[in-house]
């Protein structure tokens, strides 16, 4: 007599025969059998008898044993189709159960393992997985991923993601939001904005401009899962400098009137005079000293004090104001850099993923903003540390800052000097043909902007009249595992392209299904992004309107990993090793691009191609593929696949060749791209070399590029440079206090190597500085 049963987790509970009956009834229903409860009861009786008479089964059988017996009896009694339904039901139950077990295992890791031992906790290099909020974020993220996997995703897409054919990025946000946005500060600041806890007036001083820029980034970051970028930092901050200068100049006039000429209320008099000047000439105090303004104000002043005293007062007021505006702007920029590195937003002690674009504003105010920002960046944080954020992107443009005769050439040089010390700014190139085609002089919105990580949004199939960067961004992206297709092609390039097209079909379908989920959201789901009209056209929507139409300004993006390994699998050599491989590489990437262009033309939605920034992904694909196909030299024999179209980091190649080979891929990847050059040595001592490389990027059609070099710092003696095992300045070893080592991971700087996941650590270890060539010394 069976009275107890052993559950999967080992617990013993009372045996209930009715449960067997219920399962059989469900199986009958699933196979559309006419049989019902009565037959089920008879069969259940037989099951119990079979269990009791089986000598191999104990008095408290396990759940598995009971289910085996049910299957056997169903088949024995001729209910073959019902048995099949029962088996399917068991399999599905056990998949869900495994998921639950796996989820619980993941939760256990999050709760009890240190980030040092857990790749899950280090997946995102910007999150401290050891902190309470970081761990809470991981609980949510891992739970959401598994929920979507079982209940939301199309099983076809879930399976392709699980198997490593594709990678659905930011899966934990599948049902929640979109990736990123280029914030237009000029638009946002007009008439002020609200963060939901009160309204901020339009700023009136450079200090508040910089503070509000940080708040905008922070607030918008909570509505999206990716980074936030400011599209026009120079143009956006310049009005703040302009307003500050006006105030300072007026205050200086007022003070001088009181101090030197015993005017009782200098403030009132200064205000009246400046208003009179404005009424007569339309001019206000500005950094560029207009002779007409000077003359008009001198005339006003001369009514109250002698003419030569008025001249002296104006000279002093100008001198003081010029001095103060530099200091005020430096402090505002210093505050911005400090804020963006310390201001936690989102759970997990993340600072916002922030980027800022600038370089082309030639007004004195915009130039001052850039100069002081670069100087503040060069100076570093409180103890001279290298700022991790914001990612700065200096826009290079012929006629504006590229050549010695250009008005902002001095800032280009300062940008180079800063980057040689601090790794930022990166450089974007408006002269690359695919960027230049949008450029209209005098229209800053037509200057291409990049997200720090490389994302680019420019063309607009949804609205051809607004092919601009501001107020748009990526909606979601999914990457294709190119080496996998190449391995399975067994050298058959024709099949490779056919399979690649099938994979693109799958990604296209998946992007659309994801779009459909997000498109149904309402404005109130994005209180800042849409509610405060950061996103293009969101001002045309009401609070509870669907966001579908305005989202169409964003991009739906396919990406790829491991072109180099795919080429090795197909042809034995990657594109750094053979010209034929380079030709094939360009055809592969061109094929993906034309597929997406075709879809855009058919649907008027923005399907674009990105050279994927592969944070957690670079290790995941190769791990799965090595398990499947074993170690294939040059393909699966490292701990990571090479990023997008890059020449492998371990391959020795000089900067000239690397840039020349990677340049053409930039034109094909319209959703974003980046080329890195690794420099061996401290470029601060050789800025000529740094400039040479930046200029070659410009000449090779690179859209966005950056130079990596080791930036280490000894917190004890303050040395900043390259540190090996011991500090070259004070000679101490690393034992007591760790050296700070700044490296770049998927475009973001990371303070120590601890938070790199395993794939990334291996990649950093293998990076070849592009100088070394058969050097034995």
């Amino acid at each position, binding site marked *: 007599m069976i009275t107890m049963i052993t559950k999967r987790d080992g617990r013993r509970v009372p045996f209930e025969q009715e449960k067997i009956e219920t399962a059989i009834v469900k199986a009958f229903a699933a196979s559309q059998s006419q049989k019902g409860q009565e037959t089920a009861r008879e069969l259940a009786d037989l099951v119990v008898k079979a269990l009791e008479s089986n000598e191999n089964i104990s008095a408290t059988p396990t759940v598995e044993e009971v289910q085996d017996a049910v299957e056997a009896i169903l088949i024995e009694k001729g209910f073959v189709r019902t048995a099949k339904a029962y088996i399917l039901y068991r399999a599905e139950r056990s998949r869900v159960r495994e998921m639950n077990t796996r989820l619980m295992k993941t939760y256990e890791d999050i709760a009890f393992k240190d980030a040092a031992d857990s790749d899950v906790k280090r997946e995102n290099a910007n999150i401290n997985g050891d902190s309470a909020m970081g761990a809470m974020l991981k609980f949510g993220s891992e739970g959401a991923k598994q929920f979507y996997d079982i209940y939301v995703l199309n099983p076809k897409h879930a399976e392709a993601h699980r198997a490593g054919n594709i990678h659905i990025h930011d899966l934990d946000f599948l049902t929640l939001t979109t990736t990123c946005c280029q914030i237009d500060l000029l638009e946002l600041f007009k008439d002020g904005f609200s963060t939901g806890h009160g309204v901020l007036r339009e700023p009136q001083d450079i200090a508040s401009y910089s503070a509000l820029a940080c708040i905008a980034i922070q607030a918008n970051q909570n509505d999206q899962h990716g980074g936030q970028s400011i599209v026009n930092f120079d143009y956006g901050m310049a009005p703040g400098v302009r307003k500050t200068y006006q105030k300072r100049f007026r205050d200086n006039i007022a003070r001088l009137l009181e101090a030197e000429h015993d005017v009782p209320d200098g403030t009132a008099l200064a205000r009246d005079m400046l208003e009179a000047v404005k009424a007569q000439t339309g001019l206000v105090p500005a950094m560029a000293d207009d002779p007409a303004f000077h003359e008009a104000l001198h005339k006003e002043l001369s009514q109250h004090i002698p003419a030569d005293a008025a001249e002296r007062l104006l000279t002093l007021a100008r001198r003081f104001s010029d001095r103060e505006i530099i200091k005020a702007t430096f402090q505002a920029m210093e505050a911005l850099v400090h804020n963006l590195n310390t201001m936690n937003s989102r759970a997990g002690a993340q600072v916002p993923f922030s980027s800022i674009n600038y370089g082309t504003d030639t007004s004195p105010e915009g130039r001052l903003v850039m100069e002081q920002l670069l100087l503040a960046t060069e100076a570093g944080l409180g103890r001279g540390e290298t700022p991790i954020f914001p990612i700065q992107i200096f826009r290079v443009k012929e006629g504006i800052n590229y050549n010695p005769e250009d008005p902002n050439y001095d800032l280009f040089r300062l940008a*180079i000097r800063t980057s040689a010390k601090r790794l930022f700014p990166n450089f974007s190139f408006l002269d690359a043909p695919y960027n230049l085609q949008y450029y209209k002089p005098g229209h800053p919105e037509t200057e291409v902007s990049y997200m720090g990580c490389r994302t680019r949004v420019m063309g607009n199939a949804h609205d051809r009249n607004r092919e601009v960067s501001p107020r748009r961004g990526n909606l979601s992206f999914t990457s294709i595992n190119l080496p996998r297709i190449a391995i399975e092609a067994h050298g058959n390039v024709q099949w490779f392209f056919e399979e690649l097209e099938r994979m693109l079909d799958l990604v296209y379908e998946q992007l659309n299904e994801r779009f459909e989920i997000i498109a149904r959201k309402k404005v109130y789901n994005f209180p800042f992004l849409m509610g405060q009209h950061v996103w293009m056209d969101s001002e045309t929507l009401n609070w509870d309107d669907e966001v579908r139409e305005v989202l169409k300004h964003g991009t739906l993006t396919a990406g790829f990993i491991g072109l180099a390994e795919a080429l090795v699998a197909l042809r034995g050599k990657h594109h750094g090793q053979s010209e034929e491989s380079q030709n094939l590489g360009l055809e592969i990437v061109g094929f993906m691009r034309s597929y997406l262009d075709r879809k855009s033309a058919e649907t008027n939605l923005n399907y674009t191609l990105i050279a994927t920034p592969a944070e957690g992904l670079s290790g995941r694909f190769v791990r799965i593929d090595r398990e499947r196909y074993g170690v294939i030299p040059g393909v699966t024999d490292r701990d990571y696949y090479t990023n997008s179209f890059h020449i492998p980091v371990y391959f020795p190649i000089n900067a000239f060749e690397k840039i020349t080979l990677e340049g053409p891929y930039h034109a094909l990847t319209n959703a974003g791209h980046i080329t890195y050059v690794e420099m061996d040595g401290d470029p601060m001592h050789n800025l000529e070399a740094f400039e040479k490389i930046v200029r070659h990027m410009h000449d090779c059609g690179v859209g966005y590029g950056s130079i990596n070099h080791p930036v280490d710092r000894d917190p004890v003696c303050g040395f900043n440079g390259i540190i090996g095992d011991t500090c070259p300045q004070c000679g101490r070893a690393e034992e007591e206090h760790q050296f700070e080592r700044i490296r770049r991971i998927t475009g973001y700087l990371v303070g120590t190597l601890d938070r790199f996941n395993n794939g990334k650590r291996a990649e950093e270890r293998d990076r070849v500085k592009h100088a070394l060539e058969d050097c034995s*010394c």
Partner: protein
Amino acid sequence: MRIAGTVNDSIVDGPGLRFTVFTQGCPHACPGCHNPDTHDPQGGYDADTDDLIAKMKKNPLLDGLTLSGGEPFVQSAPCIVLAQAARAQGLNVWAYSGFTYEELLAHPDPQVQELLLLCDVLVDGRFELEQRSLELRFRGSRNQRLIDLPATRAAGQVVCWTPPVW
């Protein structure tokens, strides 16, 4: 010629991107030398100057050739070939030597003089550990000088190279 190796795109052996040839064999053997493996004249490997020149020509981003070592002035003949090729390509030439400029000028070997004439800048003098500093640009110890050779010859006295201002 006997060399220890080459570096393409070097940024630490002179301004801009440079092709650096480390000659093998050095009579100075300064204590604390950065490249002690280059001292033994039997070490390193044989290289053909034509191959080195071909490599140099393949990199259009180069600003200059740097002859380092080792001691380049004990292998002046092949170094002259490299320096001439570099100049023909429009590159400037830097040379590192453990000898001082004055010692080289007094050297009886005419090829040493010929090589000197082909160089734009000479980084001269032995590496002295007690004068070591990390803040020096393109040199290891304070006693070493970056000598602008054409300016020096024109002035009749040692003129130091002035780095570009940023």
